[in-house]
């Protein structure tokens, strides 16, 4: 066979292999991106549930924790829940505000053993605790997915494809550990 044809075939093979690798890597990165987006919406769902549960708790403890009720009304920027298209930083801020209100209520009701023993209050606390667990699970799942995609984005040769499709590193959802400890409900 003509050496020129051989070189041409080898070159064509190389281009084809690179093309296939590019497509598969791009698809893998897109899939990971979708997983991050899904986990992100999981956080939104959990935050909304937490907001709803906390609204009920604030309503039930209004008479005992007036300050917290006011705080909830004033401080919570998004009184009707979580708006769409929030940045991760804004979501973290939203969570911090909810934590503040929750820990305030926990401290306030310490002085009211009757309220603490009330079945409705206990149920509300239990549901808040469950919602909080879901929020933490959503946060961990999101961070795990972000960690995976970020590793791929910075690792050579995947970083080349990530750069070509303008895929940037994703932001982690940081846990506000101090505040999180405050809202833990003891059993």
């Amino acid at each position, binding site marked *: 066979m003509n050496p020129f044809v051989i070189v041409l075939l080898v070159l064509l093979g190389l281009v084809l292999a690179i093309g296939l690798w590019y497509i598969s890597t791009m698809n893998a990165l897109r899939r990971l991106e979708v997983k991050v987006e899904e*986990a992100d919406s*999981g956080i939104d769902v959990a935050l909304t549930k937490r907001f709803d549960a906390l609204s009920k708790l604030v309503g039930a403890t209004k008479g005992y924790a007036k300050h917290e009720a006011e705080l909830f009304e004033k401080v919570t920027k998004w009184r009707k829940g979580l708006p769409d298209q929030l940045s991760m930083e804004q979501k973290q801020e939203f969570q911090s505000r909810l934590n503040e209100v929750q820990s305030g209520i926990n401290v306030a009701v310490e002085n009211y053993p009757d309220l603490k023993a009330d079945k409705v209050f206990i149920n509300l606390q*239990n549901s808040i*605790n*469950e919602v909080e*667990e*879901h929020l*933490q*699970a*959503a946060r*961990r*799942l999101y*961070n*795990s997915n972000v*960690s995976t995609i970020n590793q791929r984005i910075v690792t050579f040769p995947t970083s080349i494809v990530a750069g070509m499709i303008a895929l940037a590193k994703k932001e982690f959802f940081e846990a506000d550990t101090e505040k999180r400890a405050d809202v833990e409900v003891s*059993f």
Partner: protein
Amino acid sequence: MDALKPYQETKKAAEKKILIGGPLAVLAVALFLLVGLNSQVIQILAGIIFLAGVILIIIGSVAFSKMVRTFKTTFLKEKIGEWVENGVYEPNRGLALNEVYQCEFMRHADRFHAEDYIRGSLDGVQFEMCDIKLEERRVEHTKNGTRTYYVPFFTGQFYAVDFNKNFNGALQVLETERPRSKRPFKKIKMESVKFNKIYKTYTTNDHTAFYLITPQMMERMMKIEQDHPGNIGFAFIDNKMYLAIDNNRSLLEVQMFRPLDERRIEAFKDDFKLIQDVIHELKLNQNIFKEIA
């Protein structure tokens, strides 16, 4: 312990018979091979001695088995009632095979055996457990024909524990690979590299895996794996936690020529350590996992 005495005596008598019968049979064979080949009288004598030996072994073994049955159905039954709240012990039955398959990580068996069924609760957590043995059939084609035999692939204990936490989908945490199933399980990685090295996590819902396996739960699962030799598998499906440990041993077994004393009874009590550890380490005794009345 006075209550043990009758069993110890029966056991001793049965073992004595076997101890006499065994050497007698050996002696008969030796006699036949060494001096009996040319003498019909010696052959008859060896035959009689052999028969006597075998009869003694059979009588001893039957007496031993009978003693074990009585020991389990009376003495152990009572003890388990003390060790486990509302404890029910049925030595001759176990969980059904379809109950074992509920965990969805057990390979399908060609032959199944279950015994030493126990039901009760520890710290208010309901559980069921039993010894199980799963075997697969192998067929070997040789010049002399076809030979079918069974090879055990799981010998250990199976537990079904109440797990009253609402979650979507199913989750499995296993030391080994899982078999294929209809449910679309997928392998996921948790945050802990150490945990991922020990266990493989399979779930139908990523969120459920992260919801049920908290970082603390991961630590405790690793501790359970460290404290209990054998291959461990956990499954969380429909308000139940299934636990299987392939440790090649059988619980609550009385062995011949091994003392049946208080230490042995304590060892039987230790057989509940795994389920106790699981309930305590995974904090299943906390209200969040218990059924709300």
